[in-house]
């Protein structure tokens, strides 16, 4: 299965994990994130997102990560990104997974 | 580069002269310490004040022998996180009795300014877009200190005393 990419950051003012939905638009849920099939497009979007987030003091630690689609929903490849998108695996009552 | 002294932006009489460029004979000039070492004879008998710029890795003992030649020592912060300059300034004052101007140059932020004053710096070069208010506040926002330092030569009588009291 082909790898997709999504772009993520922590929101500066509260640290919340956010995902890029469209230029200048960030969302809190991975389900709503823009998914990039083309790595070059993702790179361009990442550079733009970094510049925008720095200019607007919006986000920090901005980077792209790999995922696949599982039952039509984005599924991060690495445990780290899965935990960021959901919340601690040892406290399923907390974080984004709790609100689901 | 706005120059900060005692928390205010002031006129700077000094010029930084990059290596390879002519050193003005009639005005205070700051040259690199490396250049001073290489061309020291040319500065014999100079009338205008001479200052040197030292890299963060050049520690006080390395420049100690020539201190009476310098009216100013500019200590470089390549990154503000590189705190060697604080030890250098302090040693220049406490160990070698240097009494000229010690200036912080390079990447240096207002949040370090009070530390600089307490370790013996007399001035700092701020970035071009500096917010004067942040520099002014930096000297007054904390009024308690826990160590003896350059601005207070008193022995450690109690661990804590008031800054400037």
């Amino acid at each position, binding site marked *: 299965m082909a790898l997709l990419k999504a772009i993520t950051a922590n929101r500066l003012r509260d640290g919340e994990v956010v995902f890029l939905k469209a230029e200048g638009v960030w969302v809190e849920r991975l389900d709503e994130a823009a998914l990039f099939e083309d790595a070059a497009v993702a790179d361009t979007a990442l550079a733009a997102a970094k510049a925008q987030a720095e200019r607007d003091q919006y986000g920090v630690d901005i980077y792209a990560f790999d995922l696949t689609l599982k039952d039509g929903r984005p599924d991060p490849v690495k445990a780290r990104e899965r935990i960021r998108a959901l919340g601690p695996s040892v406290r399923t009552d907390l974080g984004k997974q709790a609100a689901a | 580069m706005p120059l900060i002294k005692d928390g205010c932006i002031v006129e700077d009489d000094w010029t930084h002269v990059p290596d390879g460029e002519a050193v003005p004979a009639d005005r205070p000039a700051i040259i690199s310490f490396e250049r001073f070492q290489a061309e020291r004879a040319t500065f014999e008998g100079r009338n205008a004040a001479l200052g040197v710029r030292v890299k963060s890795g050049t520690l006080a003992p390395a420049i100690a022998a020539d201190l009476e030649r310098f009216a100013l020592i500019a200590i470089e912060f390549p990154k*503000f996180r590189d705190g060697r300059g604080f030890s250098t300034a*302090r040693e220049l004052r406490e160990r070698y009795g240097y009494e000229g101007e010690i200036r912080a140059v390079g990447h240096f932020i207002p949040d370090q300014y009070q530390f600089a004053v307490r370790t013996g710096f007399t001035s700092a070069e701020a970035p071009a877009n500096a917010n004067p208010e942040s520099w002014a506040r930096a000297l007054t926002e904390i009024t*308690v200190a826990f160590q003896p330092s350059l601005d207070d030569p008193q022995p450690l009588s109690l661990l804590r005393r008031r800054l400037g009291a």
Partner: protein
Amino acid sequence: MNHIAPGRNAGVYNYDEIDRRFVSERVEQFRAQVARRLSGELTEEEFKPLRLMNGLYLQLHAYMLRIAVPYGVLTSRQMRKLAEIGRKYDKGYGHFTTRQNLQFNWIKLEETPEILNELAEVDMHALQTSGNCVRNVTTDQFVGAAKDEVVDGRVYAEILRQWTTLHPEFTYLPRKFKIAIMGSEKDRAAIRIHDVGVFAKRNDKGEIGFAFYAGGGLGRSPFIGKLIREWVPEEDFVAYLEAILRVYNQYGRRDNIYKARIKILVHELGQEKFTAEVEEEFARLRGPKYRLAPEIVAEIRRRFGGPSFEDLPPVSAALEQAKAANEAFARWVAVNVTEHKAPGYAVATVSLKPAGGIPGDATSEQMELVAALADQYSFGEIRVSHAQNLVLAHVKQDDLFALWTALEGAGLGTANVGLIGDIIACPGLDYCALANARSIPLAQAISERFADPARQQLIGELGIKISGCINACGHHHVGAIGILGVDKKGVEFYQITIGGDPTLTTAIGDILGPAVTEHEAVDAIEAIVEVYLANRHDGESFLATLKRVGHGPFKERVYAAH
């Protein structure tokens, strides 16, 4: 009811107006720094060290705030405030760390100045709990209570806390700097794995002085601290440390973050050269300016409200009766209770390691309960141990049964201190941005496997320590059994070491063999324990058995199935 001098708290350094003003000024300074960051005046690169020096990290899910518990001692009032902050600004729980601090995991940057302000109300802060400065000084969790104590380390830890606070010369060091101090014969503070370890002692005239170890540390390249001076007189305590820090600030490497700790400097210069540099600096600094006068020490000591103990018989009949009547209580006393220097008193450790629980986590309700029990039974004073447990240090033996009953009722009565279930674990990949693997689920699985308290007691003292990456926040290198999380192509694996020792006979554990999966790790631990039990002679410790029989039998058994 226990009593202490009016208006004072037992066991902690009591702040006065100047201390309070300082902490408030720091809060306002940070409030302004946050505003400058949010307005764009400060870049993230510039802001990061400033927030770190106020204990604020960015982790996986949010900011994490690490609150300082100086040398691990808290008042009940402070504990209640922590509980309140947990409820109001976090998600109702906190994590006690191996450096005797408390971390909250779900903090918002914009609320942090207000949190710091609330902490200041109870004389607390998050200063220097992170960043490349001298960190919160740690010590023995039984300080001031232990029967084997020679010097009360709190007084000197407090002197260090003050002396290092916003030190103008040493706030931008090459890397973080951790100091631990110990004043008993037994090392309960792991001083030789710290940048500087201080051993406080007395000479035959009864005068206080200090042995200094330098250059210890774990992480990517573990080193054991080396003895650089056998005796530093009390009055030179500050001057000597100032000398060490100056040498480190000037010569510590700044070109490579992995080589920036003092352990690398000591290693690269060699112990002799390093010591010579320090001695030379010390000879210059020694003098009136840095002299630690006895009056200062006396004044700081006076600020600690010492509990005044009642005259009690050394043996409590009530305690003996209760033990005879209740097996579970008797086990808890045998495992979690330590001798106190005052007759009739005891030191009780509250385990934060229930089987299947998250090591070191406590809910706001649990914090409040412990605070109430401290008021009732232990002069309103609580300690945090580096093993991530809490301690009520001055409990009357007569009260132990009532204390235990209350703890039991709240799930805090686990009898496993120092045993296999008392696992030290870092937050790992569930929270930490630097992690390679999760630590907590493995700790949970192991503690569940060994849940039977009788079996734990039979196995005896055995420390398991787990880190989620090579930074070694869980001290895995010095665990009798150490576990390190590694990432192999996106899958979590665990590398097991055996033979580590955190006490003065410090040893770094040896790698047993190839890394294993989480599931295999639990079986591997069980196999190691079985080999130990099968081979140990009467009363022999794990380390002694290991030394005698070597790694062979352990290795064979663990990897037998492969």
